[in-house]
């Protein structure tokens, strides 16, 4: 009987994979639901004996079974998009059934945990440090150093908290990992627990990912005996973007408002319920089983460039022809990612801007596409890698509107604890509106004779408003408690720097598009 493999990833399901699977089952085929290969433009992708067909529809079931479908893409593993990658964290993508313990074990699962238990905590931390693994959530802090701090911290009860609050637009690697290879995350958390002496782990998962919540809960139940005495629990977020910030996440986990905490104390010393806590991103923890497997740390350290070691699951999103998950060693240029791998825009129009690192990342101009994917190189270019999301925009994008949206988003999602973010973002929207409206006239109150001190001039010119915006962004950047207020200036200022005409010239000439 024909075995047909179709992904049960949320993206494939959103595009009709369930209906497609049912149609194949009706024709008498055995349908296996596997994880997604990450070639999203081909979803729902059907795999029969290693060969792929996609994007498939229910009408094409007969043709695919007969082998005469025009949607054939050949052997999936030899597809250029897959063949060019170096998959470590996503080694199982497309190949295993997400919740099958058998598949996980057969593909090297639990080997890292077994070895970790033999070598003991000091050696685990040593290997993670040696591998050069850095936090994949955005800040890029070395995982080994964080683990060592928690290991050496005094305390009866310590915690491993996995940050799965992947709120950045343009990122979906956490979602794909949890839906496609949940045991890898659980194993990574258990290894972290072994390293620092923690017996409890929490995964803080956002409520916008219903499939991931369901799958992770099922995976935790099935693997409980294997990772015991380590215990993992899923906690569902409640729609607050700022809870992706680690201290805000800890407050939320404790059942409080998700307000950011001032650091120090570091969460490593006083984290969840005031106890020593490792807070790591999904991708950081999921990279650990590979590193802890025999010889894994050395192999990981060999990949990448400078101080950015190993591989990064890069997410190609937005207006891109070949979008999806592309895991590769650090050092690849943006040009390769957007043009060679991504195939340019889906609309076929020229690329205007690329936002790297989610809503708080800078908009990069095509002139800057030679920049290599590396934490330090991006920092030097006033940009950030963040969680590795790349969102492509074609030339119809209005960058002034996108800058306004960045401020608006910050205003909507600010936790309210610090002033530069809470008030600065609101003022930011207003200033951008004034720039786009061509400046500001003095109002009736200011012009009233009793207002002695108010200037009676023509008002503020767009240039003066831009100076005000620049100043505001400086204040937000250096005065905010966390990355939400601190990094919102990146998209705003980069848009202003590269596309000033979207703020001034065009905005006056035509009616501004509604920004949301």
């Amino acid at each position, binding site marked *: 009987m024909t075995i047909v493999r179709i992904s049960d990833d*949320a993206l494939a399901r959103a*595009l009709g994979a369930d209906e497609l699977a049912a149609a194949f089952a009706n024709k008498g085929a055995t349908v296996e639901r596997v994880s997604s290969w990450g070639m999203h433009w081909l979803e729902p992708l059907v795999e029969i004996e290693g060969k792929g067909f996609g994007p498939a529809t229910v009408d094409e079931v007969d043709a695919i079974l007969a082998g005469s479908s025009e949607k054939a893409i050949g052997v999936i593993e030899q597809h250029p998009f897959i063949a060019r990658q170096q998959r470590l964290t996503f080694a199982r993508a497309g190949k295993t059934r997400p919740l099958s313990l058998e598949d996980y074990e057969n593909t090297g699962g639990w080997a890292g945990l077994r070895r970790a238990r033999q070598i003991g905590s000091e050696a685990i931390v040593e290997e993670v440090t040696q591998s050069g693994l850095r936090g994949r959530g955005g800040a890029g802090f070395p995982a080994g150093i964080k683990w060592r701090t928690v290991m050496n911290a005094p305390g009866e009860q310590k915690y491993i908290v996995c940050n799965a609050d992947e709120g950045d*637009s*343009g990122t979906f690697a956490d979602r794909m990992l949890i839906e496609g290879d949940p045991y890898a995350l659980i194993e990574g958390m258990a290894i972290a627990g072994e390293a620092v002496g923690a017996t*409890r782990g929490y995964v803080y998962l956002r409520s916008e990912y219903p499939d991931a919540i369901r799958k992770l809960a099922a995976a935790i139940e099935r693997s409980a005996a294997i990772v015991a005495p380590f215990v993992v629990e899923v906690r569902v977020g409640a729609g607050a973007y700022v809870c992706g910030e680690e201290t805000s996440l800890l407050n939320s986990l404790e059942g409080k408002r998700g307000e950011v905490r001032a650091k120090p104390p570091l969460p490593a010393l006083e984290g969840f319920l005031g106890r020593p806590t490792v807070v790591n991103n999904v991708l950081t923890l999921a990279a650990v089983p590979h590193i802890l497997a025999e010889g894994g740390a050395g192999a990981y350290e060999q990949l990448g460039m400078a101080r950015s070691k190993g591989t990064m699951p890069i997410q190609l999103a937005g207006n891109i022809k070949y979008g999806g998950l592309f895991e590769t060693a650090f050092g690849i240029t943006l040009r390769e990612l957007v043009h060679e791998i991504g195939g340019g825009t889906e609309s076929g129009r020229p690329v205007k801007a690329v936002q790297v690192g989610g809503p708080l990342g800078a908009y990069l101009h095509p002139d800057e596409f030679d920049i290599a994917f590396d934490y330090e190189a991006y920092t030097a270019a006033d940009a950030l890698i963040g969680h590795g999301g790349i969102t492509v*925009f074609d030339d119809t994008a209005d960058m002034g509107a996108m800058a306004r949206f960045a401020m608006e988003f910050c205003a909507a999602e600010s*936790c309210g604890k610090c002033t530069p973010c809470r008030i600065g973002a609101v003022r930011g929207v207003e200033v951008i509106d004034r720039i786009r409206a061509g400046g500001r006239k003095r109002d009736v109150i200011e012009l009233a004779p009793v207002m002695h001190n108010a200037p009676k001039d023509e008002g503020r010119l767009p240039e003066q408003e831009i100076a005000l915006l620049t100043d505001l962004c400086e204040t937000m950047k250096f005065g905010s408690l966390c990355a939400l207020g601190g990094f919102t200036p990146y998209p705003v200022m980069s848009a202003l720097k590269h596309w000033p005409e979207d703020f001034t010239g065009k905005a006056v000439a035509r009616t501004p598009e509604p920004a949301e």
Partner: protein
Amino acid sequence: MSAKEQRIGEIIAEHHGREGPLLPILHDVQHEFGCVDAESEALIAKGLNLSRADVHGVVSFYHDFRPQADSRPVVQVCRAEACKARGVERIIGAAEKAAGTRVRVSTVYCLGLCSAGPAARVGDRLHARLDETSLVKVIENA
């Protein structure tokens, strides 16, 4: 004791042993009654030995919790950067028109389907690669 008091008491008892039980309790209450209203806040505060202000502070902080039940079906449409890049703003007008007052169209920032936007969510069902026609259809079927 009203049925609501009874049920909220059960929910609190179920989560009481957890570390940081408030969010799981609020999710269950929201799921059960479609909102976390003032009455529920008071009951939860009493059950967890918190002040009502503490509980209200938490409820009002998170976008997921609503103070009043809304019996209309909800269609969440993603309007974050990646979906904007794929043209969600060009079709949202038609969506809102199709929704009228029967369906509540709400904005969500990212469903994680960023390579295949515009995307929408109805309950636990996700929809991707939407255009004007298919989004309107999703709303009509909601």
